[in-house]
């Protein structure tokens, strides 16, 4: 498999064309906007986190390249139902992988299908695309839930 087809795997293209968990939920406890001014990618991320710090629901809206869209889509699948702690660990691992500091084939990890993004590390200008949704997640979960609770 060429490096490039590794980047543009069918899974990524599929998520890009049919993003999962797309849209604005009726209720949310946390919210964050992400923006990549270099290419105009943007994302609105909505979380519903319960009292036990479990991510009960997670949805997103936005536009951008296939990498950013697929990354957001697969992130929502992967984080739904996880505890805040687990989710942040996966965030760390994902970040490690696309910065080239974690090789999912060798090192233990909880990335699962997200390993499909390991090819991104070869494309410095695309790293930001892949990480955008994750930064939005990090921003949302660490923000004060009440602040965005007006969003219903």
């Amino acid at each position, binding site marked *: 498999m060429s490096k*490039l087809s590794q980047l543009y795997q069918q899974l990524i293209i599929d998520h890009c064309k049919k993003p999962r968990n797309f849209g604005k939920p009726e209720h949310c406890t946390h919210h964050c906007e992400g923006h990549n001014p270099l290419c*105009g990618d943007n994302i609105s991320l909505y979380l519903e986190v319960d009292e036990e710090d479990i991510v009960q629901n997670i949805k997103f809206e936005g536009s951008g*390249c*296939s990498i950013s869209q697929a990354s957001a889509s697969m992130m929502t699948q992967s984080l739904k139902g996880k505890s805040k702690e687990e989710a942040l660990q996966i965030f760390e691992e994902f970040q490690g992988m696309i910065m080239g500091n974690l090789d999912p084939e060798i090192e233990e990890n909880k990335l699962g299908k997200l390993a499909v993004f390991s090819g991104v590390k070869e494309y410095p200008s*695309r790293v930001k695309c892949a990480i955008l949704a994750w930064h939005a997640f990090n921003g949302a979960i660490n923000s004060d839930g009440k602040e965005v609770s007006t969003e219903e």
Partner: protein
Amino acid sequence: MLTQAKTHNLNIQLIREEFPILQTKVRDKTPLVYLDNAATTQKPRAVIESINRFYSEQNGTVRRGVYFLSEQATASFEEARQTIANFINAPKSSEIIFTKGCTESINLVAQCFGAAFLQENDEVIISALEHHANIVPWQMACAQRKAKLKVISINQNGEIDLENFESLLTERVKIVAVSHISNALGSINPIKEIIQKAHKFNIPVLIDGAQAVPHCKIDVQDLDCDFYAFSGHKVYGPTGIGVLYGKTKYLEKMPPYQGGGDMIETVTFEKTTYAPLPAKFEAGTPAIAEAIGLAVAMNYLQTIGLDKIEIYEKQLLNYATDKMQEIPELKIIGNACQKASLISFVLEGVHPHDIGTILDQEFGIAVRAGHHCAQPVMKFFKVPATTRASFSFYNTYTEIDSLIAGIKHILEVFK
């Protein structure tokens, strides 16, 4: 075809050999297909060698030394200024000010013309087609002086609306700043009409020529523009150098931009008197090697012939446009009647960033994906970004064929 198109008589293969980088391969694999000439141009051997020679044989500071190297460097530097004056047909070389780039040239005018002429409630006119470099400096100057920024609207083809322009012309307007050619769409703007109309109100006009100087013959006297700005790196010259042409009558009334060595006549702690043009606007040690390199680039272009360049690049544009129009999923953004050799487009269902990456990785093709520092243009056309292919006279039909093949491949991947 019965009627014969104008011919350019250029030997493109020979020309390509003059550009060392065109002989390289992308990641040691694919030959480079460089189609991002609107961002920056590649350098002919003559330019690279002139820099090398300057540092190896001539390097001295300019204007002050009484010794050999300094006298040589000063002579080459001032000769470069004259070459550039001739290239755009400026009446005097003292009207050529060296800056670090087109952006600085425009900032200089926004600040110094602003300080001399712009007051509360005055107005500045730009167009809806501008690069950020011809928007933000005016926003800053207007904010400082409580003046207003007015924007000439454009139509769906990406053409400036001259009627709208005329409706904006009042005595409150102190300066008009428009691009000669849009870097986002390629539109060649009717600057001669704009200048004439503005002059009827005695309003001076600055032309952002960053995208024009590499592609067509510029005659600032024929245009009768009051300022003309461009960058070295976009006209086959070095980075770190730009040019501002300005009419003496305005330059003399403007305060200096930066303070320092060479821009003054006498300095005491109480008072400083400024040097005559162009030194008044060139504080500090200038970009000497870069100015010399830029002059070499201009000589090189003149040897090839700007008329021929224009003909050939137009042919490349037409060829690429025709091929692209055959692809149903492709939409060209910007269809001005008068267009430079640049095509901005979007592909249905594929983001420009993905196009850029795949063209680069699979085909070694360099195109630009993004907002091209022209976010208002993107907003107007309701796209977050476009893919832009911009051609130079060293590009070939074969390279355009590669681009088209690349686009078709991408459509396959994303089908």
